[in-house]
């Protein structure tokens, strides 16, 4: 659509600006202020300079959390994206069953995150949970509160359960936008199933798939509630992801300075990644027409 240049449009955006400035800019400025000071409570602050940043940069705690975070996001993307696309390819295209699948698949997305955590906390318990009980009866030694590998398996299974449908729904929407004529042409050319996927379906899905990857990466990068409810960051620090560590520091120990320095670095990483994704996405848009 041809847009006209109209600077008065700023007035329409103004309410959003004011609201978001209130709920994003002021808090962020506060975080920056805290990050260069030391506090002993009672709103008494002392200048600390770059001390906290230096401390956090040399602290294994943050690097380990970041490492775990990258591993977590990497693993869930590697599972959810192919699985989601695969599910989308197998979904019915129309009729009652299509609606049925859509509704059932959306259900996990609407469950409050702590309830998601609770569901899996219960589900994985050896004494009263279906999953834990079954694994136990099969002779597999499974205990997510003691064993860090089991804890990881549990939170990854939970995330796959929770969010794969999102990828599937988006890929499905992309698939539905492919005109039938494309498939007819492929049939005439006797294209293989793989060729149809590679040269027709995948390119058409690319746009929405990028959004799916962006959303999944970002949301997994700031995940807090679900793994916290299941494992509390444990056993030990095995599942302490970035947000869990940050909340522990900020609200648990009330270490304003270090927590603020941590927040800023966390936010900068997010900002850089969002920018890369956004640039790639808008460039794809332009190429796609």
């Amino acid at each position, binding site marked *: 659509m041809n*847009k*006209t*240049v*109209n600077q*008065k*449009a700023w007035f*329409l*955006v103004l309410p959003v*600006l004011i*609201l*978001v400035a209130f*709920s994003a800019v*002021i808090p962020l400025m*506060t*975080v920056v202020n*805290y990050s260069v000071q030391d506090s002993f409570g009672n709103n008494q602050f002392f200048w600390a300079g770059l001390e906290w940043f230096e401390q956090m940069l040399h602290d294994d705690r943050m690097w380990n959390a970041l490492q775990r975070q990258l591993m977590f996001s990497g693993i869930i993307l590697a599972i959810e994206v192919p699985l989601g696309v695969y*599910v989308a390819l*197998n*979904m*019915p295209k*129309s009729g009652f069953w299509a609606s049925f699948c*859509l509704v059932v*698949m*959306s*259900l996990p997305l*609407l*469950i*409050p*995150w702590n*309830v998601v955590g*609770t*569901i899996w906390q*219960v*589900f994985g318990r050896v004494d009263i949970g*279906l999953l834990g*009980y079954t694994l136990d009866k099969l002779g597999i030694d499974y205990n997510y509160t003691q064993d860090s590998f089991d804890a990881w398996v549990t939170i990854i299974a939970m995330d796959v359960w929770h969010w794969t449908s*999102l990828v599937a*729904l*988006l890929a*499905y929407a992309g698939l539905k936008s492919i005109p039938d004529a494309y*498939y*007819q042409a*492929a049939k005439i050319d006797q*294209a293989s*199933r793989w060729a149809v996927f590679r040269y027709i379906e995948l390119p058409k899905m690319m746009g*929405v798939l990028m*959004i799916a990857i962006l959303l999944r990466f970002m949301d997994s990068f*700031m995940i*807090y*509630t679900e793994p916290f409810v299941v494992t509390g960051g444990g056993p030990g620090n095995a599942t302490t992801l970035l*947000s869990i560590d*940050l*909340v522990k520091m*900020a*609200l648990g120990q009330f270490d304003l300075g270090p927590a*603020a320095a941590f927040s800023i670095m*966390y*936010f900068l990483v*997010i900002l850089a990644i*969002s920018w890369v994704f956004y640039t790639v996405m808008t460039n794809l848009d332009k190429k796609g027409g």
Partner: protein
Amino acid sequence: MVDATSTAAVTTRRPSLPRVNSRAVVMTLYLVFLMLPIYWLLNMSLKTNAEIQSSFTLWPEALTFQNYITILTDPSWYMGYVNTLIYVVLNTAISLAVALPAAYAFSRYHFLGDKHLFFWLLTNRMAPPAVFALPFFQLYSSVGLFDTHIAVALAHCLFNVPLAVWILEGFMRGVPKEIDETAYIDGYSFGAFFVKIFTPLIASGIGVAAFFCFMFSWVELLLSRTLTTVDAKPIAATMTRTVGAAGVDWGVLAAAGILTIVPGALVIYFVRNYIAKGFALGRV
């Protein structure tokens, strides 16, 4: 006209397997995987604690609704749902009210810094709530809004306003610009045009945006828990009190969990065909 399903079936080139529909098998497996944990919660919510702990049963043998009755008759329980609903509805209303004009501006006009503004909104959707928890706590305490519904509603605007702007922008882009121009020629003012002509045209978009605001405000816990103590305590935070000195009250916990799923399950039916479009920020 051959429909897409049979076309795809032909292109798979495996006629030797007569309609042992592999698609149906895959979907069934996936849906079972999705439903099992939810079923297990439902199953537990209908059992007595004695049955949960003493025996392992795949369905409730002594069916009981006691857990639900406990929740629905105790104000300290059901007020959690009421509080959550209040701030969720407030948030949805605020988000839509400010997002509608902004989305219109983004979909119709170029203006100075529009792309940067759009990106900046995106970053707010991506910002970790954990970063904001502490400053929000300080901010709302200092303006005297701590432990009120409006505080949580405003805090959730952080990610819901950008989301609403994108979704609405996507829907508005689909409305031809000629409609605006014709209306202006016919003598409509901007306000009258927006309310009388434009809003009905994007009604489905507004519905979807409202649904997503509702949903993300409903599922969020970190901020709503940080900003409340008693008066506006959300149901999600109330649930932690099932952990008592005598162990966990599993039955009530499960029932409370099931009750939080119900509102989502109800509204999902109405927007089922738009969910993907909403998640794609209106870009499908």
